[in-house]
């Protein structure tokens, strides 16, 4: 994969690097708080495990869908 051809960067990556992060945070809410404290725009997702944590059911759903 370490190929020599030019890699095209996605516009979302160019914006991230030039204008800074605009973020969606899934997980530790303190990471969102730290971003907010630095003046970055961030939205916390109130995430819960899929299918109320029933992994067997979740795998089954993945197969069905």
């Amino acid at each position, binding site marked *: *994969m*370490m190929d*020599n051809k030019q*890699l*095209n*960067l*996605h516009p*979302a*990556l160019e*914006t*991230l*690097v*030039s*204008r*800074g*992060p*605009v*973020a*969606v*945070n*899934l*997980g*530790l*809410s*303190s*990471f*969102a708080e*730290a*971003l907010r*404290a*630095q*003046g*970055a*725009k*961030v*939205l*916390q*997702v*109130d*995430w*819960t*495990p*899929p299918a*109320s*944590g*029933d*992994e067997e059911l979740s795998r089954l759903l993945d197969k069905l869908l």
Partner: protein
Amino acid sequence: MAKVCMVRKNAYFDSMFLMQVSRRLEGEPGVERAAVVLATENNKRLLSDLGFSAPEIQAAGPNDLVVALEAETEEVAQGVLGRLDAFLSRRQPEGEALPRTLDAALELLPEANLAVISLPGRYAAPEARAALERNLNVFLFSSGLSVEEELSLKELAHRKGLLLMGPDCGTAIIAGVGLGFANVVRRGRIGAIASSGTGLQEFTTLVHRAGEGISQAIGTGSRDLSDEIRGLSTLVALEVLERDPDTQVIVPISKPPGKKTLGKLLPRLERCEKPVVLCMLGIEPDRITTELPVVETMEEAAAQAVRLVGGSPESSFKDWEKPLAQERARFSRNQRYIRGIFAGGTFCYQAQLILQRQGIEAWSNAPLDPRFALPDPTTSKGHTLVDMGSEEFTEGRPHPMIDPTLRRERILKEAEDEEVAVLLLDFILGHSASPDPVGELLPAIREAKERVASRGGYLCVVASVCGTEEDPQRLSAQVSALERAGVVVLTSSAQAARFAAQLVEGK
């Protein structure tokens, strides 16, 4: 004392939030000890050590919440449990309901360019994939993904020209904004790419302390340069730094890459239009043939990069003779071993290298040499350097940079061993880290020193603090608190490891 526990099925909360809830419960009148945790195997073991091993805890799983209380009376404990919901309810910012899925969040914030993901490993991969599919770059703090999952995500990101930092990525600084555990450093002309989180933190703080600054510091995750992953995120990061007008020097920081990956990475780096300083911790000199400057510690990397942009690095020369002699004179005859209790994985790795170069083999739960794998990570032997941030200690609980509990207990345990001479510690400041890392460990450090002194010995505590004056914890305040407690504080983790090695030389 009454011990009471309860299990609530399917009640997921993040580990940092639960640590705060535990602390609030411990502040309730009559409550001696409180542990509010998800029932991961690691946490079940810790609960059992605290005397909580009821069958309902053993039957609980990682999505089930356990509340274990030790209180003056059963009534006190039951009273607190009755009010548990009040402790578990989160305050919502601006009183608005939060979106519950990535897609719902993107409807509210369509201009998003990054997903920050720190979910438990088993849920992180599908969310990271969904984010990449929706054209978001990803900062993936979670660990525990399989190599296959990581490769497939990185191939997708590489194909789309998106940046996937991680899995197992602790830190990054993008356009001056710190992600995960990052220090407050000035913006500048030096760009870094690292597969080691605390390595990147040390590098950026040393650059800052030398008066220079960071353009971008991009984390790639600990396995990126393995032959399985082939440096896919490193390649995207390199492209970013080459095009970034603010970056004048590029510093890749890593442990030795896989052989094939190194063979392909070197020509790519040599072709780079900007000067490159290659920092490879523990690379054997005969494994690398390149015209690029290669250095072995974060300290040397920072010094070289600073020189390349025309600055002058902090002098690392300190006259150690006197403090060394003073400390050595205080040991009793049978004291000979170093015990390093690290929060930073790279600091643990680098210390093993430095000790090895001085002819000292150290045991570790994250060993350089598999022959020196600690049989039981919770018990030290001989010289031991423990990475307290590794998976076996952090599953289902916050990292030691946030939660000092396990490091505190380990420090006291080391003081029980009559052959211990030196305690080697790291303290990591910055965003998201503990608000007072030194203050949280000082009582344990003092107690450990007293225990050793009470049997006629002397415990020398050697430390380094990774941080800046601008970090919320303030570097100088943390250093002086350590020095007031008789701790020897060195300017970098490499220096601290060298000092520790010299303390036990010839013992």
